């Protein structure tokens, strides 16, 4: 009967949309630095750096280093990729450069030319159990 404000008004929190969307119709020259998440569908000639997520579209091209919290790459990156969390290379992805990530998924078809170093993610590693099943060994002896 009564319409609430949320039904037709703007959603305060948004719906998980990216703060910066670089479309396929534009070209960026220089370093792209953002506090929010970034989606790249166009061309960026410069470093891309964000504290949040990065999504590189199928037709996108980044010529320089990439630095993000988590990333999903479907396009081309010609530079080093340094990701704190997880990096997902989709089948159409091409990375010419070194990769550093704590969690890496490379799908079949993705092209990767470079070195790869996996950084350990401290929060996700399970605590080592100090109590080993020694009781049974002692009994056998």
């Amino acid at each position, binding site marked *: 009967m009564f319409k609430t404000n949320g039904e037709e008004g*703007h959603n305060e929190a948004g719906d998980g949309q990216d703060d910066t969307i670089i479309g396929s*119709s534009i070209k960026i020259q*220089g370093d792209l630095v953002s506090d929010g998440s970034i989606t790249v569908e166009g061309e960026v000639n410069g470093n891309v750096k964000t504290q949040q997520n990065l999504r590189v579209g199928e037709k996108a091209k980044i010529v320089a280093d990439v630095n993000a919290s988590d990333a999903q790459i479907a396009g081309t990156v010609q530079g080093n990729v340094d990701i704190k969390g997880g990096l997902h290379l989709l089948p159409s992805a091409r990375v010419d450069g070194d990769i550093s990530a704590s969690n890496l998924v490379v799908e079949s078809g993705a092209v990767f030319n470079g070195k790869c170093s996996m950084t350990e993610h401290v929060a996700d590693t399970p605590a080592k159990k100090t109590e080993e099943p020694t009781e049974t060994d002692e009994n056998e002896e």
Partner: protein
Amino acid sequence: MHYYLYDTFLSDKKYEKVIDKIKTRLLDLEIQGKHEKLTLLKSLDELVDDAVTRGATSIIVLGNDKIFQKVVNKAAHSGVPIGIIPIGPNNHIAASFGIANEEQACDILAARKIVNFDLGKIQDFYFFTNVKFDKNLSRLTIKKDSYQISSGPNVSEVLVYNFYVPKKNPEFDKKMKKYSAQDNRIEIVFNKSQNKKGWFSGKKKNQKIDTIIQSTKFDIKSFEYLPAVIDDYKVLKTPMTVELAKDKLKVIVGKNRLKNIN
């Protein structure tokens, strides 16, 4: 003292009844003030300046989005709150503020809930909604912080938004709904046009949002002077710096305003 400013189209006889109704309601609510009608011979800027020097405590515009947008610059310079009584079509801004009709507007003015909004600023000129470029876009260069943006051939419009007014275009409304005039940012939006084939209407041009970048300042340059339309009424030419003016405008708003307006 409240200063009521009527848009030119309200001199049409068909609005007489509505205006009489508004005047009666304002009298009932004891928020009367000086009423003035805008004509082609009177300058809006001069009228507002004059009202402010005479001690107007609020400027209330009667009409639609156009008159509201035109008053913003002077209201921002003077610091006097503005309100709107929507009459006639094209009242998207009033609707965003939770003001559905003229009767409700009078009650909202009496309640006097004031909200601060950011504005866009070009040199010394303030604007509320957007700056629009739609000619020779390939010659446009936009600089933000450490990078430069250039547009490709299929970009049809470049707009710098301070406040996006929902216009019942689902694609635009959905993408722009998280950006508000209180988020300490202005947004640059690149729209691209796509040809769409209809069954009966032939080829149709369809606008789509291509790029959205947020910032507090954009430097816009071009090889030659390019016109930019500000708030659909004022034309300025490049080069220009579009920047954010934080909490510069005071507006009297209603309870049912958009959720992204605090």
